[in-house]
């Protein structure tokens, strides 16, 4: 059973969502404030964390920052609909995706599943995957390991998925729509910056090519491309 940690100050909402998720066969733990949530995330391992951005005490953004200090566990944020600042800030801090609040529980479950499915692909394609090497970049999909010039790179699961997709299609342009479908399991919304924020974050974690360029290039209006040699 996959484990979910729900962090939200709305006690009744959490209760209902817990009930819903449990019937969808998840094992659910709950925390009613950010500090408790961050502490639980540090003590136990969860498959995914669902985090509300608007909370008293330690708010969602700060909670995410605390969690990311020692864990790359997938995180889905619950953000107010239309609040782009929180959304982008959250993605930049390493959240994997967001779900607007209010949303139907079905949508929340769909997002959770989409992320989880992509975090554990190794189990499905057992041993079939070999390592991908593009220049200084080396990816081991089975171990979910990435190195740059032999140095290991720490990526969140969504960042890893995106990089893997780009590396598999090295030298070709991959559209943002495809990236969203394959890495997040959902179509891109209008004015959705999720993919851009994730890729910008990956760029920061990888080094530069000998000629000073980034290995991931933005192709205006089309999408992104991983440079092949």
């Amino acid at each position, binding site marked *: 059973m996959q484990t979910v940690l729900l962090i939200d100050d709305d006690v009744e909402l959490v209760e209902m969502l817990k*009930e819903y998720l449990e019937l969808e066969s998840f094992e659910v733990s709950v925390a009613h404030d950010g500090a408790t949530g961050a502490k639980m995330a540090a003590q136990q391992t969860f498959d995914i964390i669902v985090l509300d951005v608007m909370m008293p005490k330690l708010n969602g953004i700060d909670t995410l920052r605390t969690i990311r200090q020692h864990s790359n566990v997938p995180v889905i944020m619950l953000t107010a609909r239309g609040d782009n600042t929180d959304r982008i800030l959250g993605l930049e801090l390493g959240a994997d995706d967001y779900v607007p609040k209010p949303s*139907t529980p079905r949508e929340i479950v769909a997002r959770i599943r989409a992320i989880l499915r992509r975090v554990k692909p190794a189990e499905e394609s057992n041993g079939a995957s070999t390592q991908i090497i593009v220049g200084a970049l080396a990816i081991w999909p089975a171990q979910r390991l990435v190195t740059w010039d032999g140095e290991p790179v720490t990526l969140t699961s969504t960042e890893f998925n995106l990089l893997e997709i780009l590396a598999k299609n090295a030298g070709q342009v991959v559209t943002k729509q495809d990236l969203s479908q394959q890495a997040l399991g959902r179509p891109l919304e209008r004015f959705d910056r999720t993919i851009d924020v994730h890729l910008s974050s990956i760029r920061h974690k990888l080094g530069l090519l000998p000629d000073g360029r980034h290995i991931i290039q933005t192709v205006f209006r089309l999408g992104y491309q991983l440079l092949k040699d």
Partner: protein
Amino acid sequence: MGRLYWKFFIFFFLAQLTAVTGVGVAVWIANNKLENANAQIEASPSAKSMVAAAAATLKFGGVEGLQALMQYWAQRPMPQVYAVDEQNMELQGRAVSVDVIKSAREVLSQRIAVDGEQKANVLVRGAVQQIQASDGHRYLLFVPAFQKGAMPNPRMLGFNAKPRNRHLFPFVPLLAGVLASLIFAAILAWYFSKPIKQLRQAFASAANGSLDVRIGTAMGNRHDELADLGSAFDLMATRLGALMQSQTRLLHQVSHELRSPLARLQIAVGLARQQPDKLDSSLTRIERESERMDNLVGELLELSRLESGVMKVEKEPIYIDELLTTVIEDARFEGMAKKITIQYEQAGDVSVLGQQDLLHRAIDNVVRNALKYSEDESQVVISTMLKQDNIIIKVTDHGPGVAENELETIFQPFYRGSESHHKDGHGVGLAIAKQIIEAHGGTIIANNVASNVVNNHMASGLSVEISLPRV
């Protein structure tokens, strides 16, 4: 330069021009009169010395001496000194026009103001002299002005023929005056129109929604009505900005507050779909959430009505004791679930002027708030006391209290203690209470009660004090 500038400019200029022209014309007329008199009499230095010589001759040589001198002068081509007695008779019997004699007398008596004293006009002093002669007559000595063509060439004879246009209109000073008034009109117009232009720009940008413009510094160190207008604008912009900000914040909070029950509604619906067998409990939840939203919307409307001041407080006498009794009855019933007792300490029945239903609502909100945050089996104390012209209603609970720095913010809409997770109510109740109390000319404040012994255990709590002016 705007239109106002040009209007100011033209008006100032015209005013100054009129003044300059008026004064100029008046001076010209006065001068002209003087000049006319002076024009008949020669006042050049040589004429003056001739007159002086004649005067000396008359004084010391007597009438005969003067006659001899005049005869001698008469043979020479030069201006002639005339001597006229009281009867306007010329000594040599020469014809002298009455006009000239009159002018000579005028010149003699001409006085101008110098340093506050009346002194003889320097220009013409000595040009005419009056001498008491030995024959008993008083002779007026002067040189009549040259007539054109009467003399061969006065200049050759050492006379400075003065230009004869002295009585013409004074163009040069007038031109200087016009120029000066142009410059001053321009400066004055600029001085008035510049701050008005700044004000206009500030208003324009305020109208465009940027309320952070301030004109205080742009005015420099002016201290006049225009500068006051500028600071009044600044004050207005600051207040409006603060008001707009609070409205925006309220709107933001409202949308957030409405989202919470909506989010729960969505999940309740999801649960109903997921487990059709538990439809009943899901529907109960859905019902509860929609009720909450309805309450929230109602409270918001009430708050907005109170804040906009649309509500008119009908003043009627209200007996506080009576009001409190009904509130407490409700509260006792409400508190039964948590086994909260309510203690009422009354200090005399007084009445205040106000609207019964509004005041009831305000006090009820405060008491309900106290109940909500009270611990189970604790006590809420409601007491009244008289303080000068006010009645103070104090509601003290035994709950967690609030942080010291949040004592004022609890009266703002949607404040919810950072420690609390209560989902009943929306944090609008105390804001409504505050609006109502203030509409009645009262005040409402909150304090933390440090410690209290209740049923032999220490407890902190919050105390809300409502002060209302009594009749």
